[in-house]
Every structure is written in structure tokens, then in C-alpha cells.
């Protein structure tokens, strides 16, 4: 399984010379499964570049949406494969008692916000609510679970062979909770991230910024690291960068993250700041001491 970051930013695209290295596109991760099947995790503005990279392939792909905030769906109407009649796209997302996934997405893909309507998309597109139980796409087992954020929001776990990817880009597991003390089964998103080969997790705020943003649905650096340590993720990528964070700021945050991670007993270099176009090859993870005991 491979994962490539096409958009690492949260909230709103933040292009410009000060964000050129980590990227200004909003959330999107392309995942290539071991049989070549393609998944897109979220459809922020980064999915536009993903679409352009595909050429005329593939004929079928799945888009897994964590939630419907604009920074996670705004790229849908600029996703080139959606405008090819031969493409079949399955869009997965959270259920809501208010309206179907299709109807909620259609609020964005409709006038006056969009020049095209969902029914006008040339591709064969279908919308599915994520089931409560695990399901399969190609060789992968997919699991979705509600996580602590504003509004119905999912995190995903993808297991393909012996490797696993956990994707929780918008997450505030420490809201009203002490992640150090809480039992594992009471930590939002824990089961998704447990022993993951790669955890892509919300890293929106520094610890100094967080107090002004409590309840906004995102994590402080120390929360992200504590969550990753409790879940025993092998490698962690901090993601969903605040649009105000420049490359220089993120360099410093990344250095701080690595120091703190080592202080927590983690492996040097196992935590990094997500940068657009970075690709990860997910190997089977080595058994942890806990798993071999």
C-alpha cells in the first residue's frame, strides 16, 4: 500500500511563497492499494492535482470523506476523473439524520456555489454512507468510526495485507479529557489508530495556540503526540496544518514534535510534518514488544 499527500492544509487553501514546501492545498491523500486500486481520502483542493496525475486512469475509484466541511470537499468539482463518462466514482461519507450524503454534498455542487450540479457530472457517481462494520475495497479492509470533531466526522483505517493506515485529519480527542490518564477504550479514534503502520493525524495547533481554539475540533501538538504514543503508531504524520503556519513555523513545529516524541520514548524521526507530494510506502510493521509478549 502506498499513500501520497496531495493536500496537507486545513481550513482554507493557503498558497504562497511562505507555504511552498509543506503546501497550500487542503486535505487529500491518495492511497494505492496492493492490487493497484485507488482511494482518495478526502476531496480538499489537493484532489485536483491527484486527478490530473491520473491521466485517463483509473476506470473506478473510491473517495472516502471524513466529513463535509468545505476544506474536505471543495476539490470535488475540479477533479478531472469526475468529468469523464467512463469513470466510476464511489463517494463514501458519514451518515446524518438530516439528509442523505448525496443531498448534503449537492448543497455545494449546485448553484450558486457551483457551475455544475451533481446530476450533470459525466462520470458514474454513487454515494454511500459508511457502514458501522468493516467493509472491503479490493484487497483492503476499511473501517470508519466517528471521532471527536464538530459535526458528523469519521476517521478511517485501511488494512491491506500486514500494513495499516489510519487517517484522522480533524480530531480533538483531548477535549474535556486527559489523554494520558484515560482508558484506551474511552479515547476517541483509538481503535482506528492502534498499532497503525502510518497514522496521519490532525496537527493544526501548537500548544501555545490551542487554548484560544478549545472546542474547534483540532489538536494541540502535545495531544497529537500523546494520542500517537497511546495508540503505538509506528510512524506519525502531522496533517491539516493551520493556514497561518508558514514553512518556517512548520519546520520549528516539526523539530519540537520530534524532540517531544523522543522524550516520550518514541523513535527519533518517527514523527514528521506532512508535506504535499510526499509519498509513503507502507511496509508490514515490525511487531512491537507488547505484541510479541
Amino acid at each position: 500500500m502506498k499513500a501520497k499527500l496531495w493536500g496537507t492544509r486545513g481550513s482554507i487553501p493557503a498558497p504562497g511563497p511562505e507555504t511552498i514546501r509543506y503546501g497550500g492545498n487542503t486535505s487529500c491523500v491518495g492511497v494505492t492499494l496492493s492490487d493497484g486500486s485507488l482511494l482518495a481520502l478526502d476531496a480538499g483542493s489537493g484532489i485536483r492535482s491527484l486527478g490530473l496525475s491520473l491521466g485517463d486512469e483509473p476506470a473506478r475509484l473510491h473517495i472516502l470523506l471524513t466529513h463535509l466541511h468545505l476544506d474536505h470537499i471543495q476539490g470535488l468539482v475540479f477533479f478531472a476523473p469526475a468529468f469523464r463518462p467512463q469513470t466510476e466514482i464511489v463517494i463514501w461519507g458519514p451518515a446524518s439524520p438530516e439528509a442523505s450524503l448525496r443531498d448534503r454534498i449537492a448543497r455545494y455542487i449546485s448553484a450558486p456555489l457551483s457551475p455544475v450540479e451533481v446530476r450533470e457530472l459525466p462520470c458514474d457517481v454513487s454515494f454511500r454512507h459508511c457502514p458501522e462494520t468493516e467493509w472491503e475495497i479490493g484487497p483492503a479492509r476499511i473501517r470508519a468510526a466517528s471521532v471527536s470533531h464538530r459535526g458528523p466526522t469519521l476517521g478511517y483505517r485501511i488494512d491491506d495485507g500486514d500494513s495499516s493506515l489510519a487517517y484522522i485529519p480533524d480530531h480533538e480527542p483531548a477535549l474535556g479529557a486527559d489523554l494520558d490518564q484515560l482508558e484506551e477504550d474511552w479515547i476517541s479514534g483509538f481503535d482506528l489508530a492502534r498499532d497503525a503502520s502510518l497514522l496521519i493525524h490532525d496537527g493544526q495547533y501548537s500548544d501555545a495556540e490551542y487554548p484560544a481554539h478549545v472546542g474547534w475540533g483540532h489538536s494541540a501538538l502535545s495531544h497529537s503526540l500523546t494520542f500517537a504514543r497511546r495508540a503505538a503508531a509506528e510512524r506519525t504524520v502531522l496533517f491539516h496544518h493551520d493556514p497561518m503556519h508558514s514553512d518556517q513555523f512548520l519546520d520549528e513545529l516539526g523539530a519540537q514534535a520530534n524532540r517531544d516524541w523522543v522524550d516520550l520514548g518514541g523513535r527519533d524521526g518517527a514523527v514528521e510534518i506532512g508535506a504535499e507530494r510526499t509519498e509513503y510506502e507502507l511496509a508490514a510493521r515490525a511487531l512491537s514488544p507488547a505484541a510479541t509478549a
Partner: protein
Amino acid sequence: MTQKPLELILARNLMSALSTPAFLVDEGGVLVFYNESAGLLLGKRFEELGTVGPQEWGSMFGPFDDSGAQLVYDELPLVKAVRNGRPAHAEFTIRSTDGSLHEVEAAAFPILTAHGSQGAIALFWPTGGGQNGAGPG
């Protein structure tokens, strides 16, 4: 260990910040948490007690009606809320671990989600003040 549903996690986080005694049961009626204020009322912190099965918690601290008779488990607001998916209210007396009695009003409401009931929350309001004694039952 099975991951708790997000709605229970958020409920516990909220309850932890409240000064109102609050109790949380899962969809099977198992008492999975109560907050510090409830612990003061009962005389035992949740961390000391841990999770308690449905029938067991229903009789651990009473509760008793005006005549001193123990309330039927099925009639407790928390049980009605989780079983029927509707709010429920009652007044009764509970006995804490030191034997003191406390009159309370209890309001319970179900935690209903897109995936059905996940449990229920009960909030207690002490009404008549504490009273020492062995208590009925």
C-alpha cells in the same frame, strides 16, 4: 477492549466537567461512568467501583420511595430512558456508602444516534438534604 461509541466518550467528557452528579450507562444498561459529584453523593468514586452490571447498580445505593420500599429496577429513570428511548424523571432516596440518606430528583435522557441508542445519562439534584442513619432495607 471494545472502543466506546463517540457519543459515550463525549458524554463522559462533558460529565467530568459538571458539578451536577451525573451517571452514564451504555446501550446494555451497564453503568460505565459517573462523575466526581456523583461519587461524593454516593460516597465512592467511580475509579474505586468500576463498571457495574445493570441489575447490580440498580440496588447498590437503594433507591427507596417515600415509604422506604426499594424501587423496582425497571422503574428507575435511567433504565426507562435506555430501554424506551425516552426521557424519564423520578424522585427518590439513595443511601451512600456511609449510610447517610439523600433525597434526590433524577432526570434521565437517552443517547440516540444515527446508529440507534447508545445508552443514557441521568442527572441527580439533591432536594431534601442529607440525613444520617442506617436507612431502610
